[in-house]
């Protein structure tokens, strides 16, 4: 009795698988059990056939359509009346991938030897990416766990060729293939750390996180104050962010070194010879006067002081 031969190398197995799929599609109008009966054992037989060489199975045995027709005729089954429904895009893509895979493996037969390495790299990458996306600062651990799991899946999944799970594995492989180089680069360059930066912070004066571009100061009587300087609680002068002048389209006088020639801590800002109290970009014009503040009840003024306070409240010329 002849003994079964050893399983075939991968490129041929892919060719065999694609060939049987195509033959089955040409038998697709028959009852499922007939199709199964006709094609059961075919994989082992065709693998053996392919191993004897002679190129692609389609060249050795005839294209799947002819093969299926001959099979039907010899088995006494009716010939196929219509062409099989064209395979869906997914099936077509899968067949193309199988062919590509078969072609690659035929050319570089040693590639399967690297599978274990690939499983580990794939698992490390996916573990890393998933946990990094989840915000973990130390995804290396996840990468190691992923590598171990992926190695297990890789070993267990040898021979899976159909069903939904290989689709998931294929997707995971694609993601890993895209991400593996950057992830491994980052992982092997530990000095690269992510520093959270406040990208919305402004260096100058701000209100609710938005930069303040100018200030208009009015005194207690509601009159405009020119060339006002304002200090904060620690004696630091308040200023607007000068970089804003680089962003705005305004014509701004420049110093010889290119920086804006504007005193950013004197309000309202005087830009060139423009009226500092003119309407701004959003159309708002600072009012000429504000309603004077109500007179503070405060401590009763001494007889000698009223004149001095009155003089102080007068705007300087």
């Amino acid at each position, binding site marked *: 009795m002849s003994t079964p031969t050893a399983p075939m190398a991968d490129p041929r197995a892919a060719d065999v698988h694609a060939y049987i799929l195509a033959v089955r599609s040409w038998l697709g109008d028959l009852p499922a059990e007939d199709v199964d009966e006709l094609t059961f054992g075919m*994989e082992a037989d065709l693998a053996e056939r392919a191993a004897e060489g002679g190129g692609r199975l389609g060249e050795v045995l005839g294209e799947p359509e002819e093969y299926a027709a001959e099979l039907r005729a010899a088995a006494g089954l009716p010939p196929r009346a219509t062409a099989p429904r064209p395979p869906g895009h997914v099936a077509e893509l899968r067949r193309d991938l199988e062919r590509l895979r078969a072609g690659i493996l035929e050319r570089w037969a040693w590639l399967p030897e690297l599978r274990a390495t690939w499983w580990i790299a794939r698992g490390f990458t996916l573990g890393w990416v998933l946990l990094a996306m989840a915000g973990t600062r130390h995804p290396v651990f996840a990468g190691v766990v992923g590598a171990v799991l992926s190695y297990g899946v890789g070993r267990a999944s040898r021979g899976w060729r159909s069903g939904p799970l290989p689709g998931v594995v294929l997707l995971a492989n694609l993601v890993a293939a895209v991400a593996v180089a950057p992830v491994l680069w980052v992982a092997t360059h530990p000095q690269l750390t992510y520093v959270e930066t406040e990208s919305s912070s402004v260096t100058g004066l701000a209100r609710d996180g938005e930069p303040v571009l100018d200030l208009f100061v009015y005194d207690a009587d509601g009159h405009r104050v020119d060339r006002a300087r304002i200090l904060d609680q620690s004696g630091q002068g308040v200023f607007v962010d000068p970089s804003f002048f680089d962003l705005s389209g305004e014509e701004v006088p420049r110093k010889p070194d290119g920086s804006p020639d504007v005193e950013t801590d004197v309000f309202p800002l005087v830009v060139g010879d423009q009226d500092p109290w003119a309407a701004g970009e959003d159309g708002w014009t600072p009012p000429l006067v504000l309603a004077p503040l109500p007179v503070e009840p405060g401590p009763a003024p001494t007889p000698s002081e009223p004149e001095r306070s009155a003089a102080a409240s007068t705007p300087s010329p």
Partner: protein
Amino acid sequence: MDGTQLVKGVLDLAVLAVVAHEDGYGYDIVRRLREAGLEEVGDASVYGTLRRLFAAGALTSYVVPSEEGPHRKYYGINAEGRHMLDTQATTWKAFVGTMDSLVRAAEVAS
């Protein structure tokens, strides 16, 4: 004359004869037919014939599991198959005898 057409007419007998000698799986039977000289026999024709003979009750089939690769389907002959083989062999021999004398007579005449 196209040998392929001749083979098709007697493929049942050829397959039964090969399987009667020893059980085998599809491609093994194809190979043994070719080694015997039926080089033009098509793989799919043999598989189809095996399936038809099995459906007709002339063959038994069993699966031989493989730990490393896909399982194999073996065919063996049964009593019905041996009866079919005997009948077809008798018909074949008579046919060959008839054809032989026809051809020989033609050769003598020419």
